[in-house]
């Protein structure tokens, strides 16, 4: 699956099906500080992601 990180860089993850919370954990991201879309749709971090999905992580904590 393709992961788009908050800084807009992308990573490829080959790991089968797993909860989005686990993906965040692997990238050292606290779920409280982000929201996530799966294939363009907002989903809770407890939703699952699969091989063909595009997961986008948007940081909500913002200075300014």
């Amino acid at each position, binding site marked *: 699956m393709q992961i788009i990180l908050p800084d807009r860089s992308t990573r490829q993850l080959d790991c089968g099906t797993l909860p989005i919370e686990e993906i965040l954990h692997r990238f050292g991201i606290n779920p409280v*500080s982000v929201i996530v879309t799966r294939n363009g749709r907002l989903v809770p971090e407890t939703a699952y992601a699969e091989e063909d999905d595009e997961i986008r992580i948007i940081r*909500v904590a913002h200075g300014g």
Partner: protein
Amino acid sequence: MLTPDSRDVRCTSTPCSEPAVIRLRDSGQYLCSTHCIRHVENLFSRTVEDQRMIAPGDRIAVALSGGKDSTALLLLLHAALPAWPGVTLIAVTVDEGIAGYRDETIGAAVELTVRLGVEHHIVSFASLFGGDLDVLLKGRESRSCTVCGILRRRALATAARQAGATRIAIGHNLDDEAQTVLMNLLRGDFPHLVQDAASGEPECFIPRIKPLAWLSEREIVTYLILTGNYRELPECPYTGFALRSEVRAMLTGLEFRHPGTMKNLIRSRDTIRQHTPRASGVGSVQRCRECGEHCSGEICQVCRILGRPG
């Protein structure tokens, strides 16, 4: 392989089985897009009503940076206007003069006020204080948020007063409020911990209301995305210098492991406020010897920052 439908977590509102877009970590609720929007609007309305933030005939100056929180604040206040007789809104944007950052957010603020038909005032540090923040901060970048905050509060109050506002609405959210409580505790700043700017005391200050104080950053960003009002904007380049970023990281960690931590911090502050005599907060108010503005000492903080002679 799972089908997309079976993978979706469902909204736990009754009766509803739409796909959830957010989990509220402290209550454990899952909300679909319709119920998430309703939840944000209800929490906003309840905060305004419970704390009697708005009175008939009020002229509310909304502090509009153009960022996510102030955008949500203006949208929610504007949508609620028909329910408040005689209440009017204006938006005030402060241009601190931060290169590579502020131009884009001001553009977003202008677009929003034009779309909503809200009167918009823009004031700048350059016109009020004789220089952009970038210039005023030279050599004291580590105090950037403190300096900027003091000057921005003065700019906002000046613009609101000139526009005849009776309230100033600020887009501080739950995360901001919890961070502020913890920062005041860490600094040992008891007067600011118990000071309630919404009370309108001392009388010389325009009351500052915070209708988003019980909404988390996640709820606000989700609301903006769901209503088609989210846009990615640059981050303030001075953010990394601030104590606030350390406190933010600490609190999001605590909130993850112990959901409800941020709300509990605010409740604790409110309890302390209730048990604290009003005089323990701000000191006696007098006029600054240099600029004549209200302040608690002989020279106000703005004049000290600007290096005006004391």
